[in-house]
């Protein structure tokens, strides 16, 4: 704890360190995208890489997401392991065909003859930038067969799951919450980062983990909201509610067995998400549990985003799940005001 209190790094330093390690280890890993070389990424997540690895392996592209993402698909098929940065996940709209019809499907359509070992890193979540620069869109990616979708919640996962994603032979969408990228590790509610000089070990996708035990309600989340759920659970303790927190870690693969295990031990289960609720992750998780457990399923609720993200801070706070709103949703569920 004393160690992490002094840690001056932010999440973006951790991403850069993981990239550097993998680029040192494997000459086929290349990094390109908008502002990743000279600037080191708008959030600093590729800092130092261009200087260390040179223009052949780290370079800036024009503001042409379709061109550089398509180039990444082709380069991956031809033997490289590109890690490309889509500056904001919101920008998927301008290059969606490459994601939907090429990156995701070429392995399947080739009958397994073509591999697309490509990581699409993208910054997600609210930092006051309204409806076109605040979205998470994890379910939009996760809806498409053929894409793995990682949404790390912690500093350690930001590094470890990125290492695993780079080594994966499949396309992986790697969602990095802006708050995690920008926040000093010493300020995180939960910091499990690898020390600066230590080897970063890969952490597999598709295995959820319980970060806090709770007897009354289990809160399931991914990404940033895991950190908020931990804070909400700590607050609920003082009000006589024992809340556990489960971190999904990746939406695809989804840890179905893990979910069933967690649901069996929980009287109530609340799923929270900073992506849109309609047809999204919250519904997928609840449906999975309902399918597997039927009458043994716990009381279930969900709490996610239902409208576009507004600009003004007071409205943004109203729309996106927060520590108090997660706590309230958990209380409502436990006290029988279900539906949350």
């Amino acid at each position, binding site marked *: 704890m004393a160690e992490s209190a002094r840690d001056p790094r932010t999440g973006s330093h951790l991403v850069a360190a993981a990239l550097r390690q993998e680029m040192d280890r494997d000459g086929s890993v290349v990094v390109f995208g908008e502002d990743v070389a000279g600037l080191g990424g708008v959030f600093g997540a590729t800092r130092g890489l261009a200087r260390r690895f040179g223009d*052949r392996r780290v*370079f800036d*592209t*024009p503001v*042409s997401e*379709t*061109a*550089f*993402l*398509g*180039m*990444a*698909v*082709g*380069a*991956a*098929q*031809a*033997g*490289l392991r*590109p890690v490309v940065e889509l500056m904001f996940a919101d920008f998927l709209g301008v290059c969606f*065909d*490459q994601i939907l*019809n*090429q990156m995701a*499907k*070429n*392995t*399947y*359509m*080739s*009958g*397994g*003859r*073509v*591999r697309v070992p490509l990581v699409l890193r993208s910054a997600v979540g609210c930092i006051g930038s309204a409806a076109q620069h605040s979205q998470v869109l994890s379910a939009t990616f996760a809806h498409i*067969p*053929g894409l*793995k979708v990682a949404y790390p919640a912690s500093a350690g996962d930001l590094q470890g799951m990125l290492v695993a994603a780079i080594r*994966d*032979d*499949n396309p992986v969408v790697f969602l990095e919450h802006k708050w995690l990228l920008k926040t000093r590790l010493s300020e995180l509610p939960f910091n499990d980062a690898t020390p600066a000089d230590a080897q970063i070990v890969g952490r597999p996708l*598709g295995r959820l983990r319980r970060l806090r035990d709770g007897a009354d309600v289990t809160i399931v989340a991914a990404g940033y909201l895991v950190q908020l759920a931990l804070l909400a659970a700590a607050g609920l303790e003082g009000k006589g509610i024992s809340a556990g927190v489960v971190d999904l870690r990746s939406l695809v*693969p989804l840890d179905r067995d893990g979910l069933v295990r967690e649901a069996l031990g929980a009287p109530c289960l609340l799923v929270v998400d900073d992506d849109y609720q309609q047809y999204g992750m919250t519904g997928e998780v609840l449906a999975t549990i309902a399918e597997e457990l039927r009458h043994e399923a716990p009381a279930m609720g969900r709490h996610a985003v239902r409208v576009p993200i507004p600009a003004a801070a007071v409205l943004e706070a109203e729309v996106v799940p927060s520590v108090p709103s997660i706590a309230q949703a958990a209380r409502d569920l436990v006290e029988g005001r279900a539906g949350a």
Partner: protein
Amino acid sequence: MNADDLLEVFEVMLRARLFEEEVGRAVVSGEIHGEMHLGIGHEAVGAALGRHLRPGDAVVSTHRAHLHALAAGVDPVELAAELLERDGLNHGKGGHMHLFDPVARFMCTGIVGAGVPIAAGYALVQSLQAAGALTVAVMGDGTMNQGAVFETMNLAAVRALPMVFVCEDNGYSISVRREDSTAGELHRRGAAFGIPGFACDGTDVDRIDAAMGEAFEITRKKSRPSLVVASVYRFRGHYEGDLDLYRPAGEKEAALARDPVRRLRQRLLDGGTPLARLAEAESRASDAVTRWFASARRRPVPRRETAADHVFVGADG
């Protein structure tokens, strides 16, 4: 090209023609149930590609891709089996618009324009290897109006990627005539990016061969993009079953003079190639295609239980 070269090109084009005609019959018989786009009329482009591609080169093509697959060296039996919805090149997962052969470095995609940036990825790898290999991105004149093409021209020029943009300009974007959809001259579209462009009659084997030779040489030697626009005539509808009612009366008949196979045959005869040699070439081409399809039809259909395979490779597959 000398007389022997021309005769060889004739045989390559005739094989491609007969290949497409057999595929067309398989659509009519119901053996192929999906959408089908044939390249009848485009054969000289495929033949020229075949003459200029070298080992290590890659080709990324479109929904009208069989000719380019054959030119790139894709096994014709594997190809035919895949088109016939059997356990072929891609185990029945891709079909006619989504063919992938990592050994021949060939792929195609059914989304207009989407293959062009992917071709840049193959060219990126080739530029890092610096062994003189290049990638061909094939497109139609309709594709030239996709933003992906402009984006990729710019990126390829900025990164000095060894890629040749090859446009088969058949005058129609599905049903819309060229003059109603497309401004300016296509071969000049590279100029703003510093990409040299070559326009040619893509039904004249010498002209398409020369244009492609020049473009390939620039791209291979200088590692920079180039553009070839080959004007051709699409003798079939956009897809098999297209009633083709949007063509003016008599257009197709008039275009017969631009049928590259007929045209070269006549030229060979006029140039003194004995009819017997021509007949031998015709019979070899016909036998080859008959043999390919007979082999392809002996392939089993894919097993039902494989439908969920290959969404991912490895443990999650």
